């Protein structure tokens, strides 16, 4: 299955973007997010980017105030996911230009569009930034 969920959380633990590729009830999501955010945010830069939680492995990366957390299966290639996070950030960067937390917050729908072009059903669909951004640019032009 690969990617189970992608979460963007700020330093205060507020969720800025959440996309799940398996169905969890609201309560389960709340509990899960609470637990992993607590675990990951407490870690230092000298520690590795992988945290084992329940049956997930969380691969995470921090960019300024924002944490990108990706829940994957235990046998997923961790470094590939770690760089996939960076690819997502670079893609956002290319679109927003110096992307920051507020961009993602106030352009929730764009963040969703990008993610939708990159991941489907927990699998990676596209890794070319040009291709990922094409539909959004098309739309921007139209409006």
């Amino acid at each position, binding site marked *: 299955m690969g990617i189970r969920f992608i979460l963007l959380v700020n330093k205060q633990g507020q969720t800025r973007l*959440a996309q799940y590729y398996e169905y969890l009830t609201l309560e389960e999501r709340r509990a899960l997010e609470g637990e992993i955010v607590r675990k990951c945010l407490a870690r230092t830069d000298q520690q590795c980017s992988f945290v084992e939680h329940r049956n997930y492995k969380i691969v995470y990366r921090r960019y300024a105030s924002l944490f990108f957390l990706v829940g994957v299966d*235990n046998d997923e290639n*961790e470094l590939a996911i770690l760089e996939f996070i960076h690819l997502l950030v670079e893609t956002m960067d290319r679109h927003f230009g110096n992307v920051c937390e507020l961009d993602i917050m106030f352009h929730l729908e764009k963040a969703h569009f990008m993610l939708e072009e990159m991941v489907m059903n927990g699998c990676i669909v596209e890794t070319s930034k040009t291709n990922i951004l*094409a539909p959004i640019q098309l739309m921007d032009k139209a409006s």
Partner: protein
Amino acid sequence: MALSGMRGLSVFISDIRNCQNKEQERLRVDKELGNIRTRFKNEKGLTPYEKKKYVWKMLYIYMLGYDVDFGHMEAVSLISAPKYPEKQVGYIVTSCLLNENYDFLRMAINTVRNDIIGRNETFQCLALTMVGNIGGKEFAESLAPDVQKLLISSSCRPLVRKKAALCLLRLYRKNPDVVNVDGWSDRMSQLLDERDLGVLTSVMSLFVALVSNHTEAYWNCLPKCVKILERLARNQDILQEYTYYGIPSPWLQVKTMRALQYFPTVEDPSTRRALFEVLQRILMGTDVVKNVNKNNASHAVLFEALALVMHLDAEKEMMSQCVALLGKFIAVREPNIRYLGLENMTRMLLVTDVQDIIKRHQAQIITSLKDPDISIRRRALDLLYGMCDVTNAKDIVEELLQYLSTADFAMREELALKAAILAEKFAPDLSWYVDVILQLIDKAGDFVSDDIWYRVVQFVTNNEDLQPYAAAKAREYLDKPALHETMVKVSAYILGEYSHLLARRPSCSPKEIFAIINEKLPTVSMPTVAILLSTYAKILMHTQPPDPELQEQIWAIFKKYESYIDVEIQQRAVEYFALSRKGAALMDVLAEMPKFPERQSALLKKAEDAEVDTAEQSAIKLRSQQQTSNALVVTDQRPVNGSLPVNQLGLVRMPSQNMEASSHDQGLTKENGTVSTVDPASTQSADILGDLLGPLAIEGPPAAAVSAEQNMVPGLEATPDAAGALALATVGDQSNSVQPIVNIAERFHALCLKDSGVLYEDPYIQIGIKAEWRAHHGRLVLFLGNKNTSPLMSVRALILPPTHLKMELSLVPETIPPRAQVQCPLEVMNLRASRDVAVLDFSYKFGTAMASVKLRLPAVLNKFLQPISLPAEEFFLQWKALSGPPLKLQEVVRGVKPMSLPEMANLFASLHLGVTPALDTNPNNLVACTTFYSESTRAMLCLIRVETDPSDRTQLRITIASGDPTLTFELKEFIKEYLIMMPASTPAAAAAAPAPAAAPLQPQSPITPAGYNDPGAMLAGLL
């Protein structure tokens, strides 16, 4: 811009952002939800733009963790909006808010389909993505052909095809039948020729899913995968857009190597050479570079290459190269690489021959146990646990013990358990083992489960040499201040039993022992008090001649507890007091505990995720296979005569003797009084055969055969004894003359999973079956087809039903004309749950050839199941309501045929167990519901939960619950048979195999230990 156009949404988001606390946020959200609700109620007044705005707000609120239980319909309705912006919102929000179980989603299927088959590419993409994310079974059934068409269409652009590939993957997971294995291997092979890396990335994910279920079908794709890998590794024909920090799509490289790991080997020499060339290049050519991203990406590829090399069982040289690399990794500064080094080294332990090379890194691994990062420490612990054997157990266990006092609380229990297991498994001598466990309890008492101290008591009890040592040790610990209560328990227990062995040592007189133990009495909890009372009684018993002073002290304590609030303690106090006044009688009652029977360590059972060493594992596997074959009662012994006693009336008392005989040795008796009607026409033939009675050696043991013979005496008397031994001999010979041309066992197992097909075939006849099942009734039709140009004579069919089935076979004509097919309906009614199998005893004559065969009939347990899917709340309600044995049974099953979760889900589906995805939050678990129908239970709900261990597919834990204990047990065993060994691989059962699946039934009602406070009882119950 879409959002700048939605001012209301921006305002709402800023409002939320400005909230000072959670409470304010909640108020603001509630207000907004109220607002949206009112607007939606008055839907006519809403423009698509407004709808879109509100739907985004809902998504935002949902993301914040608030329940949004309305408006789903509005979100779904946007899908059918004509304009792109609205449609897009509809699709995206629908996939975020809804899941496949929502009814309105089904209502949208048509709209979705129109978008998929329509001409608008962007609409196609939206629809494919939504279906790919949340499409359910209905989608699979109605959309799969369209999606396939898009994927393989040459006129479709890559942007649509890549989505179609992943959409198909989802549909395939929902219903594997949508991808026809035969047709797809060629198609897949063509798809892997794709040049566009976006499409290839998606296709590779689809391929991994397909190949993981049917490796054999996709051999032709293997060279293609190697080609792709070569293309990427050599950077040939790769667009700049698909290189990441100079590395051609690391993700596709990783995925391709993952796909290759599903093939057991690479046989073709040139493909193998090419693959190893690439792997060698990756292994040697990956350098550490400054740029973090580049470094990560290249190492992602490197680690996957390592995994593939390990999988392919490369030459030893290459393996050592891998271990050397990993050895380097576990010592680097970069924490990620260190972590992955340890993780992969643990995987490497599975490769034979490299353990010794890994051991060279032991010191470094032990250092990692003290790493500042818990993730790394966990990996180190796992690795140490895995690499431990007799040669290094002492070092490793002592390290673990040392680490225990500083370890994180989160890890201590696991650590204690693992140390205890290793100490037991690899103890060079038993006194060392006792030392380790006592140290464990001393250092981390809170984290030492009861199992651990029960186990040490068991060892001490069973090893006389150990007893004085253990008693002395226990005595030493009691001198320590601030003792953990578990230590008090174990010391008191051991000293109670064995302190007399210390009698001559200093400060070990009964009085002193009593005094030091009694010091702890005021501070311990009730279960420990109970143990202490037993210890006192034992001390009294051992003090010979009695010491009046000690006696007085102990009696005073017994007296004190005589009216204690806890009934267990009260009873002990009263009884011990009374007994200890009896003098000599006490000696008998309180004699030393007898040895425990050898049992498998409860600890090992507990450490479910612990790797069992391979020898042990295969032993377990072997054992479970033996059990299975017992259950199936497959015997090579052909009956001397396949006929059955039939009396003139045409009514036969079922030859239950056979069943009894065959099941006697299993410790199981059953009555069988079912009456089956037999075709009057065939009574004649039955008559002819009737006198040829012989022992029906259904199953081997001579005793059984003898009893069968004795039981059949009435039958013998009822038949004319004219036809003598001669006839018996000839017919006996003849009955072997016709050989089946199909694998009967395989046929039977296939029919257990489907409802029509061939049951039996030989050169003269083919027997087909078609079945329909409704609740606890079934109607089978037997198709008896004569394949020849001469008639089949003396045809006789007799049903041997097990006790739980009522079966009635209609008339079977004595003769089947040439080239004719006869249909014989068979009515079945299920009375209760059982795994026993009905048998069709079939015989005929063709010319001089006489054929007789006993065929198992596929009227098995799962035919009376009907899968259902329960909503989560309902499921959990039922699950909780059915608590504990015998209604809910749990068992750890080992020696499971390794299969992936989708494979297991398929298996379950074919057994009519409705797998409910996502009900269990743990992705390694599987939850299924089904309804069982029988006359006694009527419709009864059964809940099944399987917990698998991704690191060891050969074991799992299964829990079954239903309202009927027999059903629960039978269903559990039934599923187990399928998990342990796929029946298709059963060795071809001899044609004569009657196999009324006399299961090794042992009424397995797990007993809750009575008198839970009694250590003896506890030990007996738990070890």
